[in-house]
C-alpha cells in the first residue's frame, strides 16, 4: 500500500486540508486542487442521486454506500470516504484495495475527530492548520 496524498473536504465541498506523504510528487496548483476537490464532491453527490431507488438501503442518505468510491487510472487510484456529517476524506494511493483504504480512512477519521475537532482554535469548515494533526496523520501512513 502506497498512499500519496490526503485531501479533506468540508461538507460543502471546499478543500480544507491537503497533505502529501511521498517526496517528489508532481504538484497541482492550489487552484487546480480546489477544482479537483469540488469536482469529486459534485460527482459524489450526483452519483448518489442516480443510484436506482430499489438499490437504496435504509441507511442515512449521506453515507458512502450510494456515492462515488473509487476513480482508477493506469498508475494510481483515488479513494473517497464520506463521514456521517458529510466530511470527505480523499486518498490518492496505489497498490491497495478498497478494504485496506477503508481501514486507513477510519484511522484518519479518528485523528481528525481527536486533533482537529477537539482543538478550540479550529473553526468549523475552515482550513485546517494544525501541526499536531500533520504529525499524527503522517504516522498512520
Amino acid at each position, binding site marked *: 500500500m502506497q498512499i500519496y496524498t490526503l485531501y479533506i473536504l468540508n461538507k460543502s465541498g471546499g478543500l480544507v486540508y491537503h497533505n502529501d506523504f511521498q517526496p517528489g510528487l508532481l504538484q497541482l496548483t492550489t487552484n487546480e486542487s480546489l477544482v479537483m476537490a469540488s469536482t469529486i464532491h459534485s460527482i459524489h453527490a450526483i452519483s448518489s442521486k442516480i443510484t436506482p431507488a430499489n438499490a437504496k438501503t435504509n441507511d442515512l442518505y449521506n453515507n458512502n454506500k450510494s456515492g462515488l468510491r473509487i476513480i482508477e487510472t493506469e498508475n494510481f487510484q483515488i479513494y473517497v470516504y464520506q463521514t456521517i456529517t458529510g466530511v470527505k476524506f480523499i486518498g490518492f494511493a496505489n497498490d491497495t484495495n478498497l478494504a485496506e483504504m477503508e481501514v486507513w480512512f477510519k484511522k484518519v477519521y479518528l485523528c481528525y475527530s481527536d486533533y482537529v475537532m*477537539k*482543538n*478550540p*482554535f479550529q473553526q468549523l469548515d475552515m482550513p485546517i492548520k494544525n*501541526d*499536531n494533526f500533520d504529525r499524527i496523520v503522517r504516522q498512520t501512513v
Partner: protein
Amino acid sequence: MSSSRLLVSGVGYDPAVGPQSTGPQVQQLATSTSSLKRQFSASGGAHSSIFDKNLHRAKHDISLSSLCYLFGEIVSWCDSKSRGVQQLESRLNNLGYSIGIKYLELTSLRENFASGNISSSSKSHATKREVRILEILQFINSSVWKGLFGKMADKLEKSQDLANQYMITDNLPLISKYISVPKEFQHLNCAAFVAGIVEGILDSAYFQANVSAHSFPEPGLPLKTVFVINFDDKVIKRESMRFER
C-alpha cells in the same frame, strides 16, 4: 429566613443592647441546624449528586474526550472574553487557581486516607502538612500530578541562576494534548490553566509563588511544557531562617 436572622443576632457584641445572654438562642440554633440536616437528607435521597459519593474513592476516572471538549470550550470562552494572548493566559490561570486552593485540601485528605492515617479518628493527628519548599514541590510533582492526570510529572528541577526559581516539566500535558496553537497566538500555552492550579496549591499551603507555563518543544516531544515557579522572596527567607543554621 428566621434561622439566618437568628444567626446574625446570635454572634458578636451588640453595642445598642450590651452583653447578651446567649443561652436560649443557642438552643434555637441547635434546633434550626437539625431541621436543616433533615432537609439535606430528604433531598439527597431523591437524586444522587457528587456530594453523595465517597470522598475517598480510589478511582476517579473521567472520559478524556469530554474533558478535552470541556477544556476546549473553556479556552474559546476565555478567548472571546479577553483581548490579547496575555489576558487569555491570565484568565486561564485564574480559573485554575480557584481549583488549586481547593484541590490541596482534597488531595492531602485522600493521600492520608490511602496511607491509613484517617481510617481511625484517633490517628488523625498523623496527617501531614508540607512545610519545606522541596517537600511541597515533590508532593505536587507526584501526588497532585497523579491525582489530576494519572501520572507523575516528568522532571522537577531547581534553576541554576535564581534561588527562588523551580521548574516542573511535563512532556505531554494531558489537558492540552489535542490543542494546537495557531501562529497568531505565538506564546500561548493552554497549560496556563494547570499553572494556575499549581499556584493555587502553593498559595494555600503558604508558599506564595507565581507560576507560569511555557512550551519547550523538542524533537519527539512537541508538546513539552515547563511550569516555572517563582517563589516570593519572603518564602525563601523564611525557609533559610528555619532550616539553615
